[in-house]
């Protein structure tokens, strides 16, 4: 296969995943959330149980007026949604679906993923400040505090599994994974998942958005396509966090017939975790800002450090 064709296929596959998976998750959120609340959710778009609702939403967003507030910093304001979306695109590049099935295999994929995810907070600050709106600014400052705090347990938990596997490459970690790691790395998996939820600002960690207090946080002033970009970033965020938890802690493509069906196992695990993320959103109320920081610094960080010690101890014993 010529190089350009190979490259084209990889880019096309990543773009397809980038555009389709969030829509599937978004639709699942519509329906699951509705049924958990005794409703039925969208039923009309696309005739069969509203399967085309998000496509209709997309069409609606495109038609809406693109408003930039008069006092806003125009360039920063317009750049922010793209900065919010871009890191996730890079992360999806590195996530292995099956054995040898990865868009871009990197020696230190884990580090890249964590580093690039950290860029998301810059987008939050950009949109928050440039909107020239006090609710936006408050949301942005909350977001920055939250993302900075939760990056620590996230990285520590990921470091634990990297230590266990002895590699920073994502496919390498999956290859080194054994079923008993589910118990050994369970606290790390828990911490990573919770901190990941906070990183993508999903309920119960959605204080930066907090629609009942801050209108819509840093997205308050956004309309039309730019707002849709932020929403898309949120759903890609769900995919990314679910995929990373799958790859790091749930053994990625491991399962029966993993040579042929590895990609299916990965996708199944991603969808199961996405379901849990949606489930959390329906079940739990939003945390208060001080409860959020307390959870991070007093529970997750010490737990992550303890897990590091445990991992090191078990690793040196083996």
């Amino acid at each position: 296969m010529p190089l350009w064709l190979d490259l084209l296929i990889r880019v096309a596959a990543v773009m397809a995943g980038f555009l389709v998976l969030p829509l599937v998750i978004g639709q699942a959120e519509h329906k699951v959330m509705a049924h958990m609340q005794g409703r039925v959710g969208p039923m009309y778009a696309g005739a069969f149980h509203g399967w085309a609702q998000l496509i209709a939403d997309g069409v609606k967003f495109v038609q809406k007026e693109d408003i930039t507030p008069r006092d806003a910093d125009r360039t920063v304001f317009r750049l922010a949604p793209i900065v919010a979306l871009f890191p996730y695109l890079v992360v999806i590049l590195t996530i292995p679906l099956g054995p040898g099935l990865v868009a871009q295999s990197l020696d230190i994929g884990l580090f890249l993923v964590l580093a690039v995810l950290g860029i998301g907070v810059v987008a939050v600050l950009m949109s928050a400040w440039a909107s020239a709106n006090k609710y936006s600014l408050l949301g942005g400052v909350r977001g920055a505090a939250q993302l900075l705090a939760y990056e620590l347990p996230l990285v520590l938990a990921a470091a634990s599994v990297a230590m266990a596997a002895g590699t920073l490459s994502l496919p390498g970690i999956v290859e080194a994974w054994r079923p008993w790691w589910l118990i050994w790395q369970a606290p790390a998996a828990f911490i990573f998942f919770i901190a990941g939820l906070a990183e993508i600002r999903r309920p119960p960690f959605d204080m930066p958005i907090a629609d009942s207090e801050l209108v819509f946080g840093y997205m308050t002033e956004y309309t039309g396509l730019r707002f849709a970009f932020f929403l898309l970033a949120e759903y890609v965020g769900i995919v990314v966090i679910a995929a990373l938890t799958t790859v790091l802690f749930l053994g990625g493509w491991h399962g029966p017939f993993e040579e042929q069906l590895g990609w299916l196992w990965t996708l199944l695990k991603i969808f199961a975790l996405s379901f849990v993320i949606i489930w959390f959103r329906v079940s739990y109320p939003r945390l208060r800002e001080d409860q959020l920081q307390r959870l991070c610094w007093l529970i997750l960080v010490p737990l992550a450090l303890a897990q590091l010690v445990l991992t090191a101890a078990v690793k040196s014993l083996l």
Partner: protein
Amino acid sequence: MSENGDRIAPGKGLLDGLAVTFKTMTRRSTTQQYPDVEPDLPPRSRGVIALLEENCTVCMLCARECPDWCIYIDSHKEEVVVPGAARARQRNVLDKFDIDFSLCMYCGICIEVCPFDALHWTPEFEYAETDVLSLLHDKDRLGDWMRTVPPPPAHDVLGEPSKEEATAARKAAGPGAATAAKTARPAGVRATPPTSDPGSPSAPPASAKEPER
């Protein structure tokens, strides 16, 4: 959840929350697919008010009791020559009977106060308009709603008889039998129209004995 202030196990609340939402998800949702499926409303639902014009005597009670003053009535008097009577009777003729449903708060007081059962609730509710002025229903439109008035529910077989019925029964049975007529009345009495009471000299006026329509 915890009894006598006992501490519950940590995380139990979190798990309970998850369980509640999951259980709800597995159950059928209670959503009514309204525009596709007609709602199954109870027959006495307060949808819109219907007017039975023949029963109206223009007593104006409804218009006066209406808290919103949303009933507008106009009438004139007519002479009706009754054969055999000494002189012509006067009768009120309804010219206008409008209810402004943009003001109406569906309290139902007009229906309660109407002494001649001219006003009725109907469960019909799909009469939204794009123009608020069109919510003023005139007497033709109000009369048209009569089609949708459901038949009244059957009488409660265990309930006390109405005052008129009780009095009639007592008079028919003679003195001393009043309590017996009240308590030991056979269940079928209510179902038959009271006008079929044979030979009752002081039959109550027909209007009070006419629940069926």
